[in-house]
């Protein structure tokens, strides 16, 4: 009986340390594979015409490059990627934003972003799973 108990303990010990060793090397990969796999791209820019009025009442019109989003994307909100530290490691998360857009509209259906998305922000183009605000993601592209 004692020998069986010792053998069981030995098997359990080997199993325990083997599992811990396996998880040490592969836990991160398993975690990453369980995350939504997303493709992100920098927020696009378009040239929009701007009308400026000087102090003496002179009206000038010129074009300026601004961050822009497709009108199609505006309805359900846009997920913006950001990095933050979680449990000692740097990871990517998404933030759901509903950007404030201006009246200007480009020929290809893009609207000028006034606030909510900054120049250089990466926005989600496609995802393997449904996203939500604050969701951790794995950016594959």
């Amino acid at each position, binding site marked *: 009986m004692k020998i069986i108990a010792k053998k069981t*303990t*030995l098997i359990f010990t080997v199993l325990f340390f083997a599992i*811990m060793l396996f998880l*040490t090397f592969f836990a991160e990969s398993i975690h990453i594979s369980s995350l939504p796999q997303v493709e992100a791209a920098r927020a696009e820019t378009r040239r929009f015409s701007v009308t400026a009025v000087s102090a003496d009442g002179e009206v000038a019109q010129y074009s300026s490059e601004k961050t822009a989003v497709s009108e199609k994307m505006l309805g359900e909100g846009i997920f913006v990627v950001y990095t933050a530290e979680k*449990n*000692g490691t740097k990871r990517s998360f998404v933030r759901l934003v509903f950007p404030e857009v201006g009246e200007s509209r480009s020929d290809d259906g893009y609207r000028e972003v006034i606030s909510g998305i900054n120049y250089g922000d990466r926005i989600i183009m496609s995802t393997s799973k449904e996203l939500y605000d604050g969701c951790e993601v794995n950016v594959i592209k």
Partner: protein
Amino acid sequence: MKKLIGIIFAVLSAVFLLPVAATVFLSFYSEGGLTLECYNDLLFDCFVFYPMFWNSVLYAAAITLIQLPVVILCAFGFTWAKFKGKGILFIFYIVLMMMPLQVTILPNYIGLRDMGLINTQWGIILPMIFSPFGAVVMHQYMKGTDSSVIEAARLETNSVFRVILVSVIPQLRVCIFAVVLFVFAESWNMVEQPMLFLNDKGLKTMSVFISESGSYAGAVLFPAAVIFLIPVLLLYLFFSDSLEKGLTLGELS
């Protein structure tokens, strides 16, 4: 009467086991009921846990393995060697053993700082190797060993190490297992030393992880505590017989 004593001991055991049972239960408990979510949070979302786990294993194993020959030699010296001041030195050992960790930790820190060992693995291992507890227990047990076997070995060889290896260690087997268990458990559970002597997170231990578990996302405390229990429990299951014998014989001697 026997029944009553049995009931009292059963109740006492239940009281002692309650925190362990609660820890195990809470490690499977989440707001929605029983779940493995807490383990998922720890094992698949908190990767700093693994280096800390292996650090604990490394420190506890190294301390136990290095301390063992030190305490055997030390106990052998106290038991069989004849030199002036042996009794006083042994009293110092006992006093040192009685001292709380908080008293000795500052001199240890100063010594390690002067040797440039702060924030190194040796800063944790080295002070623990010379812990007096093992030497005192081993000495008490060694007093009860058969001296004729040692005398016979002395006739065969001049080497002290060979005498210890051939005649002392076989008689100390039970005590060695008990000391291994105690030393491993003590090293495994240490919190203050890694907190004070180590700055680098990559060198810290699992006990530090548990004490800082509030700073990690997810319910990682209870599953970490359960995993923390397992190695010492396994070691106890291996050496439980020897531990009981060691303690009983130690008392008798």
